[in-house]
């Protein structure tokens, strides 16, 4: 198990970054996590092993105590994950004594519910199908996700408790007003909620919190040497799934991942940042957003995320 960050590498001084706004964000997140536990019959927490879900899990640990998280963790596996991340996911679930459910896009492909247009197509967008199948299989009535409103324009409009119809669709024009902290969690059979406890966190808040709480992350998040090719301004990792195209130069660069998702659409950024504190400083000076720097799939259309959310995506 080498995926775990050496916590000694985190600077001991990082706790100085603590401040009241992180406490307020943490309090709000814990309040929401408890509300889901109490208000729903069959909730689950989406857990990918990425930094946002690890922050959420840290809050869940505080909300319920280790070994007492009252809902299972659910991973929708595209089959194209970085092994360091899935290793870390398994390790962390076991450490917390949480039940981990994994459902894979490949199984949906075998069932014929997911059809790829061509073998090399990103499976990221097809996660929605597998997710909705898992919701049906387990009759989940609430799915907790680590999405943040600062990530994307469509997210900025979404409620913390986001109602989804029986097709998993988000209807931006028919959102329930969210007043005070009186969350209307009433649903009809077959409908469910997506709940976003870290809606009000920004990328910077997440890193400040990781530094403050010494949260261990997969090593991919920190500076490491990696073979990449430059493609349309992005650094594309060279993997069996993402081989270089004709004429592209393979280079070894010092990079880290700002976001970790499906291998086929996640790019690292060039960075020497070796600790959460380094990343806090780097994030403060960042000129390009997390998605803009790292995601190949969001650039296809200005409204791609909105469309995908309407189709049942997170």
């Amino acid at each position, binding site marked *: 198990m080498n995926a775990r960050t050496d916590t000694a590498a985190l600077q001991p001084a990082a706790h100085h970054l603590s401040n009241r706004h992180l406490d307020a964000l943490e309090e709000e997140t814990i309040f929401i996590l408890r509300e889901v536990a109490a208000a729903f019959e069959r909730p689950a927490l989406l857990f990918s092993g990425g930094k946002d879900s690890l922050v959420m899990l840290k809050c869940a640990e505080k909300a319920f105590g280790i070994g007492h998280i009252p809902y299972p963790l659910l991973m929708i596996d595209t089959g194209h994950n970085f092994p360091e991340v899935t290793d870390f996911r398994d390790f962390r679930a076991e450490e917390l004594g949480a039940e981990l459910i994994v459902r894979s896009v490949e199984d949906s492909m075998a069932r014929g519910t997911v059809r790829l247009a061509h073998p090399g197509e990103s499976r990221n967008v097809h996660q929605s199908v597998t997710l909705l199948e898992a919701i049906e299989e387990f009759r989940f009535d609430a799915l907790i996700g680590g999405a943040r409103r600062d990530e994307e324009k469509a997210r900025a409009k979404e409620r913390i408790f986001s109602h989804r119809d029986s097709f998993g669709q988000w209807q931006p024009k028919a959102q329930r007003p969210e007043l005070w902290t*009186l969350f209307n969690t009433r649903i009809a059979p077959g409908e469910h909620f997506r709940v976003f406890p870290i809606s009000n966190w920004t990328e910077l808040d997440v890193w400040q919190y990781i530094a403050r709480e010494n949260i261990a992350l997969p090593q991919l998040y920190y500076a490491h040497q990696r073979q990449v090719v430059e493609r349309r301004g992005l650094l594309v990792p060279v993997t069996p799934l993402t081989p270089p195209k004709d004429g592209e130069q393979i280079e070894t660069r010092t990079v880290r991942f700002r976001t970790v998702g499906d291998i086929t659409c996640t790019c690292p950024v060039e960075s020497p940042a070796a600790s959460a504190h380094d990343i806090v*400083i780097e994030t403060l000076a960042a000129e390009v957003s997390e998605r803009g720097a790292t995601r190949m799939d969001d650039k296809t259309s200005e*409204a791609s995320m909105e469309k995908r959310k309407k189709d049942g995506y997170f």
Partner: protein
Amino acid sequence: MTITINSIAAHADPASATDQNNHNSALRFITCGSVDDGKSTLIGRLLVDSRAVLQDHIAGVTRSGEVDLALLTDGLSAEREQGITIDVAYRYFATEERKFIIGDAPGHEQYTRNMVTAASQADAAVVLVDATKLDWQNPHLQLLAQTRRHSLLVHLLRVHSLVFAVNKLDAVADPALAFAHIRAALAQFAQDAGITVAATVPVSALKGWNVVDAQAGWCGYQGPTLLQVLEQLPNQPTDTALPLALPVQWVEKTASASANTSQGRRVFWGRVAAGVAQVGAQVQVFPSGQRATVAQVLDHARRPQDVAAGLSAGVVLDREVDVSRGDWLLAAPQAVQAAEDDFDTPAPQSPWPGQRELQATVAWMDDEPLVAGRVYWALHGHRWVKAKVRRVVHQLDIHTLAAQDAAELAPNAIGHVELLLQEPLPAAPFTRARVLGAMILVDTASHKTAGAVLVN
């Protein structure tokens, strides 16, 4: 204050970081004003000048080489297609002083629904006033209806700080005179309405004057910029001075990992609505009436300490009592001081007595009108009860909040109603205690959130 990457980074550096700022909790604020008042431009200006907008986002709203600030705030494709803003969007920026969360409520026809939604979460409101729409040469000028409406709504919802930003002063002939007259009219209106104004700032959102960067002396104004005002505003005060009230959100059934929690005891978690949860306090469970003493209080992250209103607490009682989600832990009844010549000792009274009949102000949000006789679900704290609308007393004029006769409340209307509850609730006037005075009404058929209720 000039915000630079280096100054922010220096602040975040462990060597120089301090926790001396006592106002560095995030400030949640809303912006009010109709589309033409430059609201989107103002928000865009705050985001761009405080460096909250990154290059790829700026590139996305650049048209013919010019950055269209307003486009930054219209996120949905339907909004871009139709040129309107559909719903509240939340945006974030931070200075070295503070993190900010903007609840960007559209100024369109659904203003009441969206404004109430955004204002219910807000510490502060910035009401935008368009100088070019006013007869600014007149020292007794008339404010626009929407300025009054937005200010009154913000006041009704008890948003703690109200800031007037007088915009487009760069587009009038005599900005100093215009600002002086508009400021006087705003002050007079606020005084008449009983509204406290935190600041009135002349700005040009388009040119960026006095938003983030000061335009010293412009309009005869030497005060802080809008951003400096926002950096200093207090967070929404919580009702800590009142008797304890805690709505039970979640009951932890097993002993927690916390060392000090007695074995086998249950922990009652919830966000303190009023007062302070502290060890030794006498409490009464609502509705069962059982009494107990608080044996331990944990904060939201399970550290033992007293917890004040506005924050989550875990309460352990000194004896086994029946408590479920939706119940309340309330300060135990206190004996009422009897008059000297009163030989009968009056029964102690709960500081938060149960009510079955409520007079309330309702902001109606559903597309179907509110009609007398209908039964809705009401959510108060964490308790759901049935609520019947007994009578629509009257509707409020949306511009003046004056009472008008009405038999029903149309979408986006605000009115006074009488509610009859299926079970009593420890409801209190919203003006006294925010959490105890707030409810939502939910349509029993569609499950839509239909009304925001402020108990009178």
